[in-house]
C-alpha cells in the first residue's frame, strides 16, 4: 500500500511549460484523455462505484445495520444473500454497497479540503516568498516529520474516533505535501516573463494570482491531489479497521474488515470481501491519476 505519500518531484519545469502554453490546454487534455480507453474504463468503474453508493437503497432491499442472528456468517451464494452474511447476520452485499458511501467520502473529502487549504497556502508562500514563505514551509516541515499513518493515527487516537475526526486527521496529513508541490510550481511560474509583464502593467496581486498563476499551477497540483485519493481511502479504512475512524455498526469497509477478521477461521472468502473493495477502489483511483497525469502531460 502506498502508505507513504507519493513523493512529489520538485523539478517539473516541463509541467509548468506545458501548462503555460495557454488557452486550448484543457481541450487538448480532453482530446488526449478521450483516446485513452483504459483510463476511460477506469473512470467508468469509479462512476459505477459512486452511483452504487448514492443509490444504495435502490440496489438492495436489506437494512445495512439490521441482521439476523440465525443467519450469521453464511457463505457466498447463500439463498437471499448472494455475497453471504457477516458476523451478526447482516447482508454483506448491502453492507458493501452502503459502505461505499463512507469509504468514498473519506477518500475524497480530505483530499479536497487539503487541496483548498494546502493549495492556497502553497500558492501564497510561492508567490509572496520571503518571510511568509519561510514561516509556512518550515511549519510544513514539522508536519512532514510524521509518517502519514502516524500523524493520522495520532490525531484520531487523541481526539477520538468518528467520521469528522477521520476527515480532519486525513486533511491535516495531506496538507503538507500539497503545500510543498504548490509552492514549488508557483515559485517556478512566478519567475516567468508573462507574470512579470502582468505585474508591470499594473495588475493587482489578486488578479495576477487568479489569472496568471492559478491557471498555470492548477494542472500539476490537481494531478498530485488525485494521486492522494487512493492513499486517503486506504488510510481512512485503516483507521476504521483500528477502531479509530468510523465506528461500528456503521457500514464502512474498514469497520467491516475488522468485524470479519475473526471470520477467516470460518469462511476466508467473506472475510476478504470488504478489503477487496478497498483495493479495487484505491487501484481505480491510482490508475485514473496515472491516466490524468499523462493526459495533462504533467510530471509530478
Amino acid at each position, binding site marked *: *500500500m*502506498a*502508505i*507513504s505519500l*507519493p*513523493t512529489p*518531484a520538485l523539478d517539473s519545469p516541463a509541467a509548468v511549460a506545458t501548462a503555460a502554453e495557454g488557452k486550448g490546454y484543457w481541450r487538448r487534455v480532453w482530446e488526449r484523455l478521450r483516446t485513452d480507453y483504459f483510463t476511460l474504463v477506469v473512470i467508468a468503474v469509479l462512476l459505477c462505484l459512486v452511483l452504487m453508493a448514492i443509490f444504495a437503497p435502490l440496489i438492495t432491499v436489506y437494512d445495512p445495520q439490521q441482521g439476523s442472528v440465525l443467519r450469521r456468517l453464511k457463505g457466498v451464494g447463500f439463498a437471499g444473500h448472494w455475497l453471504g452474511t457477516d458476523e451478526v447476520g447482516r447482508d454483506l452485499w448491502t453492507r458493501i454497497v452502503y459502505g461505499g458511501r463512507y469509504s468514498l467520502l473519506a477518500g475524497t473529502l480530505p483530499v479536497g479540503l487539503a487541496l483548498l487549504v494546502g493549495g492556497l497556502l502553497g500558492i501564497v508562500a510561492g508567490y509572496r516568498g520571503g518571510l511568509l514563505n519561510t514561516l509556512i514551509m*518550515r*511549519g510544513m*516541515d*514539522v*508536519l512532514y*516529520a*510524521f*509518517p*502519514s*499513518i*502516524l500523524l493520522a*493515527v*495520532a*490525531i484520531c*487516537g*487523541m*481526539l*477520538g474516533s468518528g467520521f469528522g475526526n477521520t476527515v480532519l486527521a486525513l486533511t491535516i496529513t495531506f496538507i503538507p505535501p500539497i503545500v510543498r508541490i504548490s509552492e514549488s510550481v508557483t515559485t517556478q511560474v512566478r519567475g516567468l516573463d508573462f507574470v512579470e509583464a502582468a505585474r508591470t502593467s499594473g495588475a493587482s496581486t489578486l488578479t495576477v494570482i487568479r489569472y496568471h498563476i492559478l491557471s498555470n499551477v492548477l494542472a500539476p497540483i490537481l494531478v498530485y491531489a488525485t494521486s492522494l485519493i*487512493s492513499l486517503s481511502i*486506504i488510510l481512512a*479504512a*485503516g483507521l476504521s*479497521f*483500528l*477502531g*479509530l475512524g468510523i465506528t461500528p455498526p456503521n457500514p464502512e469497509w474498514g469497520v467491516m*474488515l475488522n468485524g470479519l*477478521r475473526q471470520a*477467516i*477461521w470460518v469462511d*476466508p472468502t467473506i*472475510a*476478504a470481501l470488504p*478489503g*477487496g473493495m*478497498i*483495493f479495487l477502489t*484505491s*487501484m481505480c*483511483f*491510482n*490508475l485514473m491519476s*496515472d491516466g490524468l497525469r499523462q493526459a495533462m502531460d504533467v510530471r509530478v
Partner: protein
Amino acid sequence: MWAFALRRLLHTIPILFGVSLIVFLLVQLMPGDAADILIPPEAPPDVRAALRAAFGLDQPVYVQYALWLRRLMVGDLGVSIFTNQPVASELFSALGNTLLLALPAALLGFSLGVALGMLAAFNRGRWPDRLFSAIAIAGVSLPHYWVGIVLVAVFAVILNWLPAQGMGAGGVPTSWAQIQHLILPVATLSLIPMGVVSRLVRANVLETLSQEFVATLHAKGLRPARVLLHVTRNAAPAALALMGLQLGYLIGGSILVETVFNWPGSGGLMNLAIFRRDVPVLSATILVLAAIFVMINLLVDILQAVIDPRIRR
C-alpha cells in the same frame, strides 16, 4: 561536505522542537486527563486535586510543556498511567520488535522494487514492463492490512503452514520456529516499498536513459554493463531518498500490520495506549517514532550528498 551535514543537522533541531509542540498540543486537545482515567467521576474532589498535582496537571499549560520538555531532554519519557512502569523500557523493547519486521521488509521491498523497476525500464513497452508496472501499481494500491489478513487466511488457515499471529518466543530470531513468525508480516510490509520504489526507479531510469550522455557512452563504445553503471549512479540518489522515507514509514506506520499480526511492536504499543487512554505511553511513542523518522531523513540527505555532489549546495 561536513558543512552540509552540519547545516542539515542544525535544521533538524527546530523540527524536533515543533514535533514536541504538536504532540503536546494533541495531548492538550485530548478529552479528559489522567485523573479522569484513573479515578471514577464520583471520587472526592481532594483526591482528584491530589492526583492532578501529582501529575503536574494543576500547573499552567506552558509550565507543563516546559517541564515535559526538560524531562525529555534528559531522556525521561515518563511513567505509564496504566502499568506504572517507566515508558522508556517498554517503548524500546517494542521498537526492537518493530525493527525486526521493518528492516527485513525494507531490504526485501527495496531489492524487489529496484529489480522490477530496472527490468521494466530496460524493457520499456514490452511485456516485462507491462507486467512489472501492473505489479507495482497493485503494490501501491493494496491496503496492506488486508493483504496481511488474506495471507493469514491462505497460509495459516487453509494451508496451515505458518503461524497466524504473534512473534513466538521473541527476541532476535535464531530458530526456524521464530523465523516462521516473521515470514507473513515481513512479506506484507515489503509490498509497500516494493510498489513505490519500483515505480520511481522505472521513471528515473527511463529519464536518465533519455539523456544525451547515455547515447555518448554507447557511441564511444562502452560496454553495456558499464553504461548500466552510469545510469544507475544517476538514478540512485532519488531512489535512495525514497528508500529512506519508506524505511521511516515502515517503522512509524507499523501500527496496522502489527495489529493484524498481533505483533508486540511500537505500533501495537501505540494501539494499546490509545485504547487504555495511557497518555504518557502514547505521547512518548508518537514522539520517538517521529524523531526516528526525522533522523532517518537526515541520514538519507547526507548519504545523498555523498553520492551526488550536486546536492551539496
